[in-house]
């Protein structure tokens, strides 16, 4: 019952109107861009190309941002709101507190990610979106991405101050960087794993030079390796977060004399 209440508390945090509106806009942005694309081109509009290009931005940008916001807020919301003292002086083991709240965050990320993909699919393919392979692959990759990103970002939130900044460094610094370093470093990037799971059609001749370079430098990742890497990150991140949260002190600094 305690776990369920914490799970609901986490969902309640996500459902705060301002945050929810911002995150919905973020998730729906690719669908909106697709509609504008369709309206702008009118003739010769390619649903596959539009979906492929915009779903990459959805997964690699909006989805990562959503995961970072929701996963870090599991801990930082309690610290900044200074309500963490209530939770940490109750007999419920700390790992259960973090686990229940994280599950709430994962559900929130999944729902918003799902809305984003379905809205984008509908804007590109109309009613036939469920028959599209690209949409199906994205829907399959979404839970794995949600689990992996949220676990990793939760670990960051439990271990480091100002976690949102670190997650941004990871998402928009480390992940693109691994694409440009020859070898297998991109196996240590959740984004690369997700790209391996959900391949999309890209605009021929319009692909950006960095994307072309990364194809040359980083060999394609087998699907089994992508699934394995995501599973390892999800499990290790979550275990690390639970361990940190059980051992670390979270008394607000302002109170410290």
């Amino acid at each position: 019952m305690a776990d369920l209440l914490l799970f609901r508390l986490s969902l309640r945090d996500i459902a705060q109107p301002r945050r929810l509106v911002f995150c919905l806009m973020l998730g729906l942005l690719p669908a909106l861009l697709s509609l504008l694309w369709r309206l702008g081109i009118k003739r010769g509009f390619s649903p596959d190309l539009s979906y492929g290009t915009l779903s990459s931005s959805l997964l690699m940008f909006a989805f990562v941002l959503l995961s970072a916001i929701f996963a870090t807020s599991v801990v930082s919301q309690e610290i900044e709101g200074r309500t963490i003292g209530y939770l940490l002086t109750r007999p419920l083991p700390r790992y259960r507190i973090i686990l229940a709240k994280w599950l709430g965050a994962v559900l929130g990320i999944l729902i918003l990610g799902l809305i984003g993909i379905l809205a984008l699919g509908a804007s590109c393919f109309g009613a036939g979106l469920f028959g599209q392979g690209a949409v199906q692959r994205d829907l399959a990759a979404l839970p794995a991405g949600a689990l992996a990103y949220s676990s990793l970002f939760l670990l960051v939130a439990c271990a480091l101050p100002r976690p949102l900044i670190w997650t941004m460094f990871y998402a928009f610094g480390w992940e693109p960087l691994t694409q440009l370093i020859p070898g297998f470093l991109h196996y240590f990037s959740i984004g690369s794993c997700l790209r391996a799971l959900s391949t999309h059609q890209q605009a021929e001749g319009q692909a950006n030079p960095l994307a072309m370079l990364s194809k040359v430098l980083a060999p394609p990742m087998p699907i089994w390796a992508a699934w394995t890497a995501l599973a390892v990150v999800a499990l290790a991140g979550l275990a690390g977060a639970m361990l940190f949260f059980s051992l670390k002190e979270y008394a607000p600094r302002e109170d410290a004399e």
Partner: protein
Amino acid sequence: MIELQRASRWYGQVIGLNDVSCTVPRGVTALLGPNGAGKSTFMKLVSGQLRPTTGFVRVLGDEPFANSKVFRKLGYCPEIDHFYEDMTGREFVRFLAVLGELPKETLDKRVDEVIEYVGMTVNAGRKIAGYSKGMRQRIKLAQALVHDPEVLLLDEPLNGLDPVGRREVTELMRRLGEGGKCVLVSSHILHEVEQMTRSIVLVHHGRLLAQGDIYEIRGLIDKHPHRIAFRTSDPAALARELLRLPRVLSLRFDDRDPEFLEIQTREAEAFYGQLADVVLEHGFVVESIESPDNNLEAVFRYLTEG
């Protein structure tokens, strides 16, 4: 029930609590000290939110940090005025009662009981965001009491309460102490603490300055003799007789008040023993006897200001 043994806590280069050893027994004990003295660090160590850098802290025989066994028997009312604002008072108390592992069968009954106990029955259905400071304080107290803990830590529980509320909460704490619970109250409202308990722990600059019964501590402060003030119809005659007593150090009259006399002595108890004989023997009419510095305020001042 609470024990600190050579407990120190550092925050980087800053010391929060320095080599403190003390025990807090059953009953009400006041944790006193000026701002920045180390009260919050003390409370956070005992409530298991911080670990001591050196030494140890024990609550009911166990180290409290992240210890579920201790938290089952410990209630904590923090000083901070922060809540899950969109919850109602009842939801808040119920939520923390569930986390406190209260049995499902008695949960709602107990929540209602404790809400009534702190006088919040009428407002428990409202969102906390709309509460006054006093209501917030009461609901915070309710969440600390809901699982009927053996050890209760109350950080500035009288803050924000109106005089009636203060009296009620003071009375409530006194009752809890008399009921055998260990209640540690941090407060800076000294005269109200005095109505709650005579047992104090005084910290200053992170160090333990004094612990024990307030009057016993006062008796040990040699540097400041006890002042005893009289109102009598003939202060000069009374002064003449009192000066014969060996324990009287000085006398003071007040030009503006012809019935006032104040003496200073280092041995108040012995002086009071002889005073009765003097008054009866000479038939003095004494309207009142007061000891203006035999209280918590004075002891606090003498110990912290030197």
